[in-house]
């Protein structure tokens, strides 16, 4: 962050413009439930109740410049517990947008720039041709080395496919083998799906940088890409915020989208119920225990508890009901892991880990050996705080465990399995 001066905004005025009728920051009872339940409370000497009070008192300069806005992950837990339903993340969003580009955390700005640098909309700047290459390359290898999958498909730009599938850039970029379990699952259920060379990437840090225009543009590229291929369903894979940024933007900007937005979790659950994914927990002979992280971006902020129930159904089917331990609190009341809102990209490591302590305690209290989560950010953050605070749990994707249960997890697809799980496969 540089010293470039941050303009002062009038938060009270903004709040009045912004809030729907009947919702007012004046309604705040100063009860402190928000702050009590916010993992960012205390960081930079700020908390959500204080933020609202200061806004109401016109302490605009302090609020315009506090770096705390980059530590609030915009998870909206404060709103969830607020008796007056006050959403402070909206003010944080405005405050973020108000920071001059040069002063914002460079990692978030850079990620947004990279997203806009190619038609891929990839925060790692992976261009369409490279994506196509990686997918073909990996596919080739699987066909050659895994006889059961010698006809595996990973369609690209297939017009009229039912599912338009997105992918977090981390996979094609850093761990391409992690794409394979997902392809195998699609293969098994006979899904009619495609990747797109345009707008395929999932992640979206433009929203987190507070740059509304950039956020719109990224989503526009993605919406256009889905419309162009004529797909019925934009299927969000295991990445939390990509769903929220797309879903929210389409509503917020009133965009034309001729397709449904769906989360892969819903389909995992459906395919298991329909018997298309014949998973079971028989493999878990040692009763290895699992917990699950509800990403706020798809649970609290979007679908609500319905998807959290689907997630639990999937986990229990995979590991056995008796081996599943819920974190407390959970579902819509769950804590953000502390990696969201661009925190992982913002370079504020110490603050991020302070935030993550709450998640660490939650996981530690379960005593589970593994955390399952359908979100890349959550995944990275929980691994990091695990190492930092001396936890001994692993973090796994759903697709890994599904393929493990089905006995189709390839040699190169086992990065996140600890010795206990590996021992059960061999």
């Amino acid at each position, binding site marked *: 962050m540089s010293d470039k001066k941050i303009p002062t905004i009038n938060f009270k005025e903004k709040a009045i413009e912004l809030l729907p009728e009947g919702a007012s920051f004046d309604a705040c009872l100063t*009860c402190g*439930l928000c702050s009590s339940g916010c993992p960012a409370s205390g960081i930079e000497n700020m908390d959500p109740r204080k933020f609202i009070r200061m806004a109401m008192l016109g302490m605009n300069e302090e609020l315009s410049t506090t770096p705390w806005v980059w530590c609030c992950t915009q998870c909206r837990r404060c709103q969830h517990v607020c*008796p007056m*339903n006050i959403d402070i993340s909206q003010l944080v969003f405005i405050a973020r947008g108000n920071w001059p580009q040069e002063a914002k955390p460079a990692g978030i700005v850079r990620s947004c720039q990279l997203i806009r640098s190619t038609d891929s909309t990839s925060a790692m700047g992976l261009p369409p041709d490279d994506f196509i290459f990686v997918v073909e390359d990996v596919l080739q290898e699987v066909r050659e080395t895994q006889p059961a999958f010698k006809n595996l498909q990973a369609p690209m730009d297939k017009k009229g496919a039912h599912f338009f599938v997105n992918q977090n850039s981390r996979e094609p970029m850093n761990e391409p083998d992690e794409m394979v379990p997902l392809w195998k699952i699609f293969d098994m259920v006979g899904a009619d799906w495609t990747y797109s060379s345009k707008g395929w990437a999932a992640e979206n840090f433009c929203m987190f940088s507070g740059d509304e225009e950039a956020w719109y543009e990224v989503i526009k590229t993605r919406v256009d890409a889905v419309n162009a291929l004529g797909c019925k369903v934009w299927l969000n894979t295991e990445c939390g915020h990509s769903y929220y940024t797309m879903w929210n933007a389409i509503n917020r900007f009133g965009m034309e989208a001729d397709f449904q937005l769906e989360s892969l979790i819903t389909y995992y659950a459906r395919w298991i119920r329909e018997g298309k994914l014949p998973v079971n927990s028989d493999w878990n002979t040692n009763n290895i225990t699992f917990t699950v992280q509800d990403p706020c971006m798809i649970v609290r902020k979007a679908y*609500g508890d319905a998807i959290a129930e689907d997630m639990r159904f999937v986990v229990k089917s995979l590991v056995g009901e008796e081996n599943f331990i819920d974190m407390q609190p959970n579902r*819509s009341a769950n804590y953000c892991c502390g990696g969201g809102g661009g925190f992982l990209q913002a370079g504020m490591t110490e603050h991020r880990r302070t935030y993550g302590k709450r998640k660490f305690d*939650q996981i530690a209290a379960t005593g589970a050996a593994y955390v399952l989560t359908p979100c890349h950010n959550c995944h990275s953050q929980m691994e990091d705080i695990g190492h930092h605070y001396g936890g001994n749990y692993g973090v796994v994707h759903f697709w890994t465990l599904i393929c493990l249960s089905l006995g189709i997890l390839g040699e190169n697809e086992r990065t996140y399995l600890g010795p206990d799980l590996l021992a059960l496969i061999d």
Partner: protein
Amino acid sequence: MKEETRHFETELAVVGSGLAGCAASIFALNRKIKIAQVGNTGAVAYTTGYLDLLGAVEESSKAVENPWDGLELLKKSHPDHPLSHIPAQDIAEGFRQFTTFLGESGIAYTGPQETNITALTPAGTLKKTLCVPATMAAGPQAFAAQRPCVIIDFHGLKGFSAREVVANLRHKWPQLTAARVDFPDMEKGEIYPEVMARALEVAATRTRLAELLREAAGEIKTIGLPALLGMHTPDLVRSELERLTGLTIFEIPTMPPSVPGIRLREMFEQVFPQKGITLIPQQKITALSFAPDRAQLNLRDNYGPIVIHAKAVILATGRFLSGGLEAHITGITEPLLDLPVHQPPSRTDWYREQYTDRQGHLIHKAGIEIDASCRPLGKNGTPYHERLFAAGIILAHQDWIRGRSGAGIAIATAYKAVQAAEDLLHARI
């Protein structure tokens, strides 16, 4: 992209998630009624955890030792009071079912007894209440037995001061002393009880805290702590700490936002759906309308619009704080159905001149009126609709703050309203 409306069909819709709404859902569950419940966090999250039935007969300042006798007095002096219309055995049964449910759901409570318990407040004063969380029960016992006891607080914790508790209580409890310790890993800055409570769900934190507690207790065998002994498994956390320290340990409520309230709320939000209730937390009904054969409730959550169809509705929307009543220049209204609100004739009559006036203020008795079967009265003095019932502090003719009867009114009237709703549901569905 089209928004899809989600539809729910149910027998009973409960509007409100305060104590009254949650109690209504519990009673309806026990009667195997199909339920949908909607509402923001009500005052539940602010409560001390104590469930008061009757601590004072409203205008009288004398503490009520025996609430059952108190109710008899209330009946004579306040025949309009909602509790005056409910048989004592129904009130007791309501408390029993409510506390049993809490216990089965992981938060053990003492059941309703013959007399009130003399319980400790965050400030170190005493109050009368009927039921207390098991984690707090040893406090009143230690007080009654006048056992030597150390009250322990923590650096950085606001809303609870051991010194204050001791200063206010010492003349009644001479063997009381105060101590302060550092909470493990939270030595700096302001810390909320909620954060400590969650940290104590981790065994390693308990082990470290136990050592500090033992040291602080010295020779004394009983200690009182602010209410932060775990969030999800408070009884386990307390017994583990007792085991590790060899001490008798009890909790004292803190100022809001307090852990006992958050415990209840999180428990309801988790357990209700498991029991088959369609629970939509944190949202408000925006429209409620009635057809002859059913009621329709409209709302939206983050995901989109929701419509609920129900055979019966219980309105438990609270008073001003929760939005069940609204105060305007021209008077007090009930916003959802515009039910007539019993209220002082004009705004100037809302408050008496002295804020501390013993008789209380008339505005604190404002609310909606009901008939003998808990049906709110409409403009013409007859029930608004046969499918509509009401419960909780939205009801007129009670000042629950002065009467120290918050939970009592919520639980007892919910019990009665569910009974009445069941009669309707059974009579003809």
